[in-house]
């Protein structure tokens, strides 16, 4: 559908396009992070492409790769009715530096989407007007969608009641707990695991 976009990208940016594919009918281009902003602006402004809507932006953590973090943008053109997926790879093995140019100047939507990507994956967007957490609370430490975030680690915003305060056991009674009939149910919550 938008093979045209891939061809235009390759003709215009050459080496900055690392790879392209059209698996499952989804045209995808992996680009160099240095050209991220220029490529996004080109996709938005080129008269033949006109990707005027940013459907989604997210970060994907591949802990075994370097660069480790992949930032994925899904674009759609309302006028041309075609789509493209643009990816770029950033960050070292420890994600000490994980920065990318902000594309808020290209799409206004990118403002909140980049905040979400920052919140969940810890990608720092250079030039973003207001890079704050958007889903988690400001007191939250870390970025939960990174693979090194412990899956069951909670950071309660409000301190939990203790059993002395409640005057009764807060352990879950049947039928709650693992035997509720769902194989994916949570483990029985115990105080010792919390500490």
């Amino acid at each position, binding site marked *: 559908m938008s093979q045209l976009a891939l061809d235009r990208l390759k003709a215009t940016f050459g080496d900055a396009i690392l790879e392209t594919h059209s698996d499952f009918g989804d045209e995808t281009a992996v680009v160099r992070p240095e050209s991220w902003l220029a490529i996004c602006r080109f996709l938005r402004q080129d008269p033949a492409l006109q990707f005027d809507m940013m459907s989604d932006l997210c970060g994907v953590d591949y802990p075994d790769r370097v660069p480790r973090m992949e930032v994925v943008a899904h674009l759609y053109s309302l006028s041309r009715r075609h789509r493209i997926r643009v990816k770029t790879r950033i960050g070292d093995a420890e994600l000490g530096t994980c920065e990318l140019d902000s594309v808020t100047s290209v799409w206004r939507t990118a403002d909140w989407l980049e905040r979400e990507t920052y919140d969940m994956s810890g990608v720092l967007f250079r030039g973003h007007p207001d890079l704050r957490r958007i889903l988690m609370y400001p007191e939250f430490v870390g970025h*939960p969608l990174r693979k090194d975030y412990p899956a*069951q680690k909670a950071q309660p915003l409000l301190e*939990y*009641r203790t059993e002395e305060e409640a005057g009764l056991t807060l352990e*879950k009674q049947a039928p709650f707990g693992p035997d509720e009939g*769902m194989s994916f*149910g*949570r483990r029985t*919550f115990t105080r010792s695991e919390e500490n």
Partner: protein
Amino acid sequence: MAKSQVTLEGSEAGFATTRLDALLNWARKYSLFQYPFVTACCGMEFMSVAGPRFDLSRFGAEAPRFSPRQADLLWVVGTISQRQAPALRRIYEQMMEPKYVLAFGTCASCGGFYDNYTTVPGIDKVIPCDVYVPGCPPRPEGALDGLLLLQDKIQRGDRKPGIVKPREDPLKDLVTLRKKEATP
């Protein structure tokens, strides 16, 4: 002319007070003003419970109050995220005594399958809870069972938390019957 009268029998000490308690509890259990704190998909079942088909008003609990100051019963319907917990506690603290809390569904009762950074593992970690209704989501009958259990607790003056027992699955026999038919 008084149509009905509370009869005071027996000795003066203690006996009459109990009757008054019973009378007050009886009045309370049939006039629960509710505050629906609806956050997730269980809300659909709650709407069904509150609507005409299952009809909460049969039990005197039809009046929703969207100010916690006027409410007796807090329905916590759905997942409570860590970020919502302060709001929930504040709502609870604004309610007038006597106040009751009903955890509607697995998420409100124990966090459900959200065993991660997002969700409070049961509202009893944040506020006291009187009745837990299991189910994902509970059927409206389950919610009514929860309300009846709460009324029973109010009448007895019992503040120990209770869990609604799951009912027998009415279709279980039908499924086994069909399986038997399928295997010759």
